């Protein structure tokens, strides 16, 4: 089945940048209430730049791979660049297959394109990304009411 691209299995088995590291500016803990999956995620900022994303992810291959891809795509980038990746991932994952994703923007995230056709799994793929947005907010990286963030946070409970 096309959901489990080799790339996903790879990321799930050997997640990049996994583990919790210090120093960090904010740590958050998010849970998927339907399956009990959890992610603890830390961000370490250097002004406008994301110096480190470290995390501990307890979940299915999709949620672990998604966290791994997240860490890979945003570390070392600016907040503005990370937002572009986040928005593109979010758009693709919630598109029900309409948005095939742009590899130029989301890199390995493209391997998660198949998730969009399994609505019950979209939450798994979004878990890490929502935690990341929340962590940025808590680190004071942006005004709390910014829209892309708050819409993601709502979905956390769906």
């Amino acid at each position, binding site marked *: 089945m096309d959901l489990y691209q080799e790339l996903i299995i790879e990321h799930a088995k050997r997640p990049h940048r996994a583990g919790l590291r210090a120093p960090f500016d904010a740590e958050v803990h998010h*849970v998927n*209430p*339907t399956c009990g999956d959890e992610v603890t995620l830390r961000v370490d900022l250097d002004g406008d730049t994301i110096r480190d994303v470290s995390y501990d992810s307890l979940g299915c291959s999709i949620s672990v791979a998604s966290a791994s891809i997240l860490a890979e795509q945003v570390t070392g980038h600016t907040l503005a660049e990370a937002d572009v990746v986040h928005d593109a991932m979010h758009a693709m994952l919630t598109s029900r297959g309409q948005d095939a994703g742009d590899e130029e923007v989301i890199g390995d995230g493209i391997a998660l394109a198949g998730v969009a056709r*399994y*609505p*019950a*799994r979209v939450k798994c793929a979004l878990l890490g990304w929502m935690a990341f947005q929340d962590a940025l907010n808590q680190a004071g990286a942006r005004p709390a009411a910014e829209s892309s963030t708050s819409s993601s946070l709502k979905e956390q*409970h769906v």
Partner: protein
Amino acid sequence: MPAAPFTSEELAAIRADFPILTRTVRDGKPLVYLDSGATSQKPRAVLDAERDFYEHHNAAPHRGAHALAEEATEAYEDARADIAGFIGAGAGEVVFTKNATESINLAAYAFSNADHGSPLRIGEGDEVLITEMEHHANLVPWQELCRRTGATLRWIPVTDEGRLDLTDLGSLLTDRTKVLAFTHASNVLGTVNPARELADAARAVGAISVLDACQSVPHLPVDVTDLGVDLLAFSGHKMLGPTGIGVLWGRADLLEQLPPFLTGGSMIETVRMEGSTYAAPPQRFEAGVPMTAQAIGLGAAVRYLQGLGMDRVHAHETALTGQLLAGLADRPWVRVIGPTTTENRGGAVAFDVDGVHAHDVGQILDDSGVEVRVGHHCAWPLHRRLGVTASTRASLAAYNTPGEIDAFLAALDRVPQVFEVAS
């Protein structure tokens, strides 16, 4: 240009959608169903939507990841979105319940389940304001809330004409008032209350307004933003939908503050033996496997009503109400209980026949195939206020015809004959 009542061709087409309307009762009398205020009949589109769900997509929504669970979740949430759209709301503001009674109880329990210290929590010295024309469903839950909390129940009186008497509103609605709960349209009098005005008055004193919209949502265009209330309840079975489904709508930021009511599966965030945390609305209020097929059926009902056009439904029922009131006005032995014109008035018309008990009136009508409701219609205090033990009520829906009003009036004329009273 105001919307027009349905033409007789349109009406014939509508009636053909309702299988039950072709049946006869009491030895072959054609059914004249004038009890839609109690529960409405269902078009084939609603029955088909339920059946299609069971035969092709049935699974527990929000509980699994397999193909059927996906389809069931999608159908359930699409229904929520359609129903929300029907009342001008966001999908996240629509909570599914089993009926309006549960919706109102959910609201009432919130004020005693809220933590001490929460602004919602009520107690001694606080007041709940209702009206004397409420259905028991919007009356007893508030009595019970007051019993649980020590708060005081007060009520807005009703005039002899069956309107709210707002003369003393200023002394009834004060900063002690935490809740103002009232009906949009009375199920007995037909009276349509000034919802916006009362909601604004409630907001001005910091009270939460709760609107019982059971008799308005099925019959007129309703937009929650225009109404300005905080919470609003209605039932599916009165609006062409299945039994066993109701709605509580709430302003998003208020719903967010309400504590859970029924607790259990799928309304939680995390559960430990030592304690639990809860999901965001609307899931927080939907414990257990939901009324899935019924929500989907109600979705089909609102799409059916949208197809008819609520402005036309309203125009049609208003025309029939006018015909009914005129017919009753011609019969001096009948006293209408409630407004006698169609102004700010829905299609529930209760009346009293001089010297004949409502049960007996209803029986004679039933014998002619005309089905109306008799009794206090779950508004006992209102009946006491208006000096009757029981009344007879004809109530309308989109599928009723001018001919049925004539049949009703003709059957009614048998009443004074049988009971040998003046006519």
